[in-house]
């Protein structure tokens, strides 16, 4: 099966240098060749094969990724890729995820990029390691490698001779730089990739195993709680620690400026002491933004950039314009953020469920004043995060507290109201669409404007951590910056994928942040796809066209067309029978216009009397490129649909002039079982041999827009303001508000 045409080993000083040329197999390898010799995925940053794969003398195989398991199943998918390319059973591979002492630095686990970055690196590294092992055996036996076979962790040759991988890796044979091209296993021969693999993390999670950073129990560990100001920007005026420090079990009250924490032997003692400290803290209030946040945002200065400018004459047919708004949304992890830290012998270790251990290390080192080399950050799973939530902040809290208790592991977990009021939210946004049609009902011209804060204030420096903002000598956060196209931040997916001859798209970046914000699943793509795909529906109606057909007539990309057709077919779009009060909605996007293709069709019932929206069947079609774990893709897509429906139907962060008022689940209501869809079907379109496109965020925009379009279809009410509360639905239907 090998496509190696020439191998040549040059023995160096204790290290084997390797040169070989490969005929590329499959488009994964072909992709690398198109990159002009640039190494594929994260190999471009960490080219040595043994940064990714190590094989022990006993044949044990360890694969390293700089990405984090966040509940999205990436550990399982990466293990599948490695096992496939190394020609070993799935179970033979042990994965090590993000750890600053052990793994490559792959930045953040975000942007649906893990398979593209780490999956591509591991795919190629594992294929090249296998070829190296074949070459080693070939040299040992003086046989052509083409006559050998790698199978079940050993290389096999004629006459029953074989050598285990462990025997073949003596010396530094894997300490070589990767080549641009790899002899990957052809998809038709796959045993592990492309097959639904049960997730490796689930058994522990359903049996009470140690599965989360929350479950870490180190010897001598103590428990801490922080006391946060009532709102961001408030400063501590006075604190009486007397009562709290006398409480049972209390070991220490830590204060540094407006940063307050209490440490106790038992966790509930720390909770009680935290409440006592809260009662004895006086705060200087900080400013809160006005209630009408969208009107306020419109008054703030913006940096404008035209991200698409296709000049020409506007059409002479019908024209239409609309404005869409999205409130602040929470990540809303079910488990409040948690971290464990230990400062011992001059070195600090932090166990965190953040999305990037290397950036966290940089931030923590600056916060506590240690050189980076003296800080180690280790990823442990947490409650799902869906972006930059309180996880990094909790890591900073634990680090700061641990520095004052050398030798004692400190576990800190936030309380519910702290998570709700201190996590960085997904930004409120405004968008405006305008278009004209030509006489044939085609879109002739298109104008789109979007206003947004930044979508990333991720740490990488102490000023990005809550503790860094609260200490007596606060660290100044870097000025917020927009994330550039083609990925984009607030303007992610602001450029239409549809064929429009004349178009202008402008991104209005607002540096001033009325509330603390950062990355929430899909960033601006949630709002932009909601806006664009609602607007496409509105234009289809103007053109008296079927919304699916209207999209198809403006699409050129065959994979986009496939996904749209698959979702429509799976849902039964053409045969849909509209009962009174019910309707169907459709939406499509290619995430970031360069990643996964996703289309959603769904049906709703709108209860006229109450304004309630009930979601029935949902059908989603997804093309994530080569599918590594199809059931993993389905799981992510189902979850993304439900979460997006929850954001869109119910959620908005609220505040008054003193504080955030969305402090618990009663005042930030998320979707519950009786209201989730009747069913969700996900159709995975596999593209064997094609590049990995990621999955996790692709559903967020299409699900929201499909909902809006279905509500319109059901009751004629076009809702452009998220969330679609009952009051808004009734108002849009022209019904009186309930008294």
């Amino acid at each position, binding site marked *: 099966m090998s496509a190696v045409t020439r191998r040549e080993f040059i023995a160096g000083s204790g290290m084997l240098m390797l040169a070989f040329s490969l005929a590329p197999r499959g488009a994964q390898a072909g992709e690398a060749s198109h990159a002009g010799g640039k190494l594929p995925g994260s190999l471009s940053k960490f080219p040595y094969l043994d940064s990714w794969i190590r094989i022990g003398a006993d044949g044990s195989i360890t694969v390293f990724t700089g990405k984090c398991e*966040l*509940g*999205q*199943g990436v550990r399982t998918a990466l293990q599948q890729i490695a096992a496939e390319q190394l020609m070993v059973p799935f179970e033979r591979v042990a994965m090590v995820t993000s750890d600053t002492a052990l793994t490559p630095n792959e930045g953040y686990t975000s942007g649906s990029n893990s398979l593209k970055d780490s999956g591509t690196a591991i795919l190629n590294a594992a294929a090249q390691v296998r070829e190296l092992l074949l070459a080693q055996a070939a040299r040992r036996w003086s046989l052509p490698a083409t006559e050998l076979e790698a199978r079940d962790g050993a290389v096999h040759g004629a006459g029953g001779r074989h050598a285990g991988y462990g025997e073949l890796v003596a010396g530094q044979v894997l300490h070589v730089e990767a080549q641009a091209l790899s002899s990957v296993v052809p998809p038709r021969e796959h045993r592990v990739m492309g097959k639904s693999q*049960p*997730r490796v*993390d*689930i*058994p*522990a*999670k*359903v*049996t*009470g*195993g*140690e*599965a*989360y950073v*929350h*479950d870490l*129990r180190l010897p001598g560990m103590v*428990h801490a709680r922080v006391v946060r100001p009532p709102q961001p920007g408030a400063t501590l005026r006075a604190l009486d620690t007397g009562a709290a420090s006398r409480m*049972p079990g209390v070991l220490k009250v830590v204060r540094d400026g407006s940063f307050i924490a209490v440490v106790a032997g*038992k*966790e*509930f*003692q720390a*909770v009680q002491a935290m409440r006592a400290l809260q009662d004895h803290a006086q705060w200087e209030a900080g400013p809160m933004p006005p209630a009408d946040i969208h009107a306020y945002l419109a008054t703030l200065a913006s940096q404008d950039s035209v991200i698409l400018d296709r000049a020409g004459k506007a059409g002479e047919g019908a024209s239409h314009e609309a404005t869409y708004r999205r409130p602040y949304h929470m990540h*809303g*992890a*079910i*488990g*409040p953020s948690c971290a464990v830290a230990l400062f011992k012998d001059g070195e600090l270790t932090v166990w965190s469920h953040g999305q990037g251990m290397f950036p966290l290390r940089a931030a923590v080192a600056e916060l506590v004043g240690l050189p980076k080399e003296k800080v180690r950050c280790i990823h442990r*799973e*947490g*409650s*799902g995060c*869906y972006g930059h939530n309180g996880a990094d902040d909790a890591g900073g809290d634990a680090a700061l507290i641990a520095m004052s208790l050398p030798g004692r592991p400190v576990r800190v*977990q936030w*309380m*519910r109201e702290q998570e709700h009021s201190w996590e960085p939210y997904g930004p409120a946004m405004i968008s405006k669409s305008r278009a004209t049609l030509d006489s044939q009902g085609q879109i002739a011209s298109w104008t789109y404007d979007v206003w947004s804060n930044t979508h990333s204030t991720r740490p990488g420096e102490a000023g990005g951590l809550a503790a860094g903002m609260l200490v007596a000598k606060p660290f100044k956060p870097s000025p917020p910056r927009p994330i550039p196209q083609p990925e984009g931040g607030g303007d992610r997916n602001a450029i239409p994928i549809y064929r429009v001859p004349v178009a202008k798209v402008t991104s209005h970046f607002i540096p001033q942040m009325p509330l603390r914000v950062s990355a929430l699943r899909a960033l601006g793509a949630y709002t932009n796809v909601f806006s664009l795909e609602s607007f496409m529906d509105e234009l289809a109606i103007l053109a008296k066209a079927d919304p699916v057909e209207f999209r198809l007539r403006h699409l050129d990309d065959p994979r986009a067309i496939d996904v749209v057709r698959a979702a429509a077919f799976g849902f039964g779009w053409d045969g849909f029978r509209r009962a009174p009060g019910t309707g169907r909605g459709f939406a499509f996007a290619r995430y970031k216009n360069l990643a996964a293709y996703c289309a959603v069709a769904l049906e709703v019932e709108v209860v006229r009397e109450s304004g309630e929206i009930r979601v029935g069947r949902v059908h989603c079609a997804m093309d994530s490129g080569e599918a590594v774990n199809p*059931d993993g893709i389905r*799981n*992510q897509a*189902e*979850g*993304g*649909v*439900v*979460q997006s429906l929850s954001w869109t139907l119910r959620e908005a962060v609220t505040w008054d002039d003193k504080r955030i008022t969305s402090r*618990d*689940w*009663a005042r930030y209501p*998320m979707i*519950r*079982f*009786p209201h*989730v*869809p009747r*069913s969700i079907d996900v159709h995975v379109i596999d593209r064997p041999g094609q590049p990995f496109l990621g999955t996790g965020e692709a559903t967020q925009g299409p699900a929201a827009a499909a909902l809006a379009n279905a509500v319109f279809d059901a009751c004629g009410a076009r809702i452009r303001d998220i969330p679609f509360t009952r009051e808004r639905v009734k108002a849009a239907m022209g019904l009186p508000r309930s008294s």
Partner: protein
Amino acid sequence: MTSLEVNGRTVQVDADPATPLLYVLRNDLGLNAAKFGCGLGQCGACTVMAGGEAIYSCLVPISALEGRPIVTVEGLGTQEHPGPMQEAFMEAQAAQCGYCIPGMMMRAQALLEKKPGASGEEVREALEPNLCRCGTHMRILRAVARAQELMKGGR
């Protein structure tokens, strides 16, 4: 000292009697499954069974639980020998981050012990107190339906 029966075992707990059960389960008894979610009885991540009922262990103090047998996910089986509810959740791959899942399992267990033939609609209603942020709802419903079959001795 408070005497509790947890997963069929009687344990003496040296903690303030006002301590909510959750902290005792996690820290004194080293049981990981029940999770802290809100401390307010709004999310169900801490759900365990006491005297056959699903309770919020983040709210109920241990002093109120003497004489009420407590069952947690650890009491349903092990990784090597999973009980029907655990087997069903593994089969249905009904977890993403999984933080809410033990609470879901215990609320479903309490329902099915009382009402083995509960309808899909009744399962949805019964799980209403428990939140899942990953949106794993459809799989959780499938897992509970599968657990129903397994409990009836189905394969």
